[in-house]
């Protein structure tokens, strides 16, 4: 009779505590789920889940406050940075983050994000740039690329009439109150790992009271772009990366040591 050997199981992958075990409403192939998971992992690793308050946007991530296992609020369209300001100013020792799409942050909420950064609000913003309005069904966003077809630019974005896509990281990096502003992408594993590191730094900058931090994440919207998920990943790489170069647009001097710690 063979002897059964007991092999101890090791947990190598599990749902972060900061993420709720519920189905999301995101479309297949959308990278919101990846962004959520990265944030949740970072909150767990930093041990701040029970001190964190998330502010959700209006857009596809409107229900983010239900997905994160943290205290959370749902802001009006574009106002998450203002709402986060209100929360952070009365709870300065808590961790406050906003999660915003490109319509929310770069169109209707442009004033709020610029002024939150200008004031150096000690909050962390995760900015999902997928070059389209997802929730309302694929209209042109301020980040929509030139010639990109959307339901409100059906023949392709005509920059002569609608202007050029806005580069928010480059813009916000100009402000002294912003201490950490970087652009990352979620289109492959390597970039995803880099994105997580950036998210971690962005939260650490806040926890250390250094100022405003934002991580822009280039993301896919297969539904809005009318592509399959793999095609969407490819489109992001081919079309978005040239216009939205990945990189560190602002690393303030006192944030730099946070980066070195990682290496």
């Amino acid at each position, binding site marked *: 009779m063979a002897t059964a050997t007991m092999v101890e199981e090791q947990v190598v992958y599990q749902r972060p505590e900061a993420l709720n075990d519920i189905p999301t409403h995101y479309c297949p192939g959308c990278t919101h789920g990846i962004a959520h998971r990265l944030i949740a992992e970072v909150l767990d690793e930093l041990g701040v889940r029970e001190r964190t308050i998330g502010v959700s946007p209006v857009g596809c991530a409107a229900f983010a406050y239900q997905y994160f296992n943290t205290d959370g609020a749902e802001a009006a369209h574009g106002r998450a940075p203002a709402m986060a*300001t*209100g*929360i952070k100013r009365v709870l300065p020792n808590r961790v406050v983050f906003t999660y915003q799409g490109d319509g929310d942050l770069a169109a209707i909420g442009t004033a709020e994000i610029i002024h939150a950064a200008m004031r150096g609000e000690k909050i962390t913003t995760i900015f999902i740039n997928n070059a389209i309005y997802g929730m309302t069904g694929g209209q042109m966003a301020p980040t929509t690329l030139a010639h990109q077809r959307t339901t409100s630019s059906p023949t392709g974005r005509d920059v002569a009439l609608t202007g050029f896509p806005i580069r928010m990281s480059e813009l916000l990096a100009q402000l002294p109150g912003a201490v950490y502003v970087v652009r990352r992408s979620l289109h492959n594993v390597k970039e995803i790992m880099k994105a997580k590191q950036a998210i971690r730094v962005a939260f650490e900058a806040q926890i250390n009271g250094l100022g405003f931090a934002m991580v822009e994440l280039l993301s896919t919207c297969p539904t809005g772009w009318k592509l399959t998920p793999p095609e969407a990943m490819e489109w992001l790489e081919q079309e978005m990366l040239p216009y939205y170069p990945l990189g560190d647009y602002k690393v303030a001097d006192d944030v730099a040591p946070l980066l070195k710690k990682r290496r």
Partner: protein
Amino acid sequence: MAVELMKGNVALAEAAIRAGVEAYFGYPITPQTELLEHMAKRMPELGRAFVQAESEVAAINMVYGAACAGARTMTSSSSPGISLMQEGFSYIAGSEVPAVIVDVMRGGPGLGNIQPSQADYFQVTRSAGHGDYHPIVLAPASVQEAIDLMGLAFDLADQYRHLVFVVADGLIGQMMEPAEMPPMQPLRQERPDWALTGAEGREVNTIASLELHAEGLEAVNLRLQAKLETIRAAEQRSTEILTEDANLIVVGYGTAGRIAQTAVLQARQQGLKVGLLRPISLWPFPEERLSELSDRVQAFLVVEMNAGQMVDDVRLASGGQVPVRFYGRMGGMVPVPEEILHEIVTVYEKLITSGV
């Protein structure tokens, strides 16, 4: 505390501080700017939060954030700024967090002017934002009453987890008058159990005004309406003079009510049996008292600094039992007692039949 000569705007600000406001967010606009300026000086020296926002839109959403975090919080503005805040009001009402708003009304529409006005009665009493609700609205007629109502506003906001307006006009904001401040209340130490403070050792709290399912949102609305019904029953406030034997009652609030009081006294000197009802809560409107009075007077004369807005509420509350006449000035014009007296005499001669 001693009686001091205080400007209405400053008194409103200091009264809020005494009532334990923990965070103020605002944007400069005449004629309420002294309120913001007083906060700019006092809040930081008390270690409390003050932010001059980039717009009224941002200011009200900062208030929304601080309210969600369980702080006593407020903003102040004037008519055009209040228009910009509509969005935030609606979210605050929809997610049932407490907040206090001061509206020092000015002449409109549009950019209008900076003179005293009551042209935004509909704006504040009907909903002050999209969706189906009324904020609580309190209207002081003096600097002292402004101070007293400011404290009450924070208490009502907390009690009902609702939006409370204190509405003045440029005249009350700019007027100096002797008044006495209440003692400083200590800041609330405990945060309410629903507040967003980080889920340490408890289940998470979430605050949102989002409910995609119609059944769910109807349930939210039914709960909100039940709350408003409670407020309507419990929070009607008004004051009156010489109504006991009055044949004609003048109805006016805030500055118009105060000026009308002088006209009423002048009418009495002429032997006319005239009284004054001055609503203090504009929502809930003091409909019970008005309804009682309409059983025994022969007419109402409503005086407002607008084209006739509260007059609708007076007509509703009096149920068509007696004629309701209106006199108003617009565009920042403030009526003087003599013109109200003239109107009183005209209405009295036309409508009052019993002996003088």
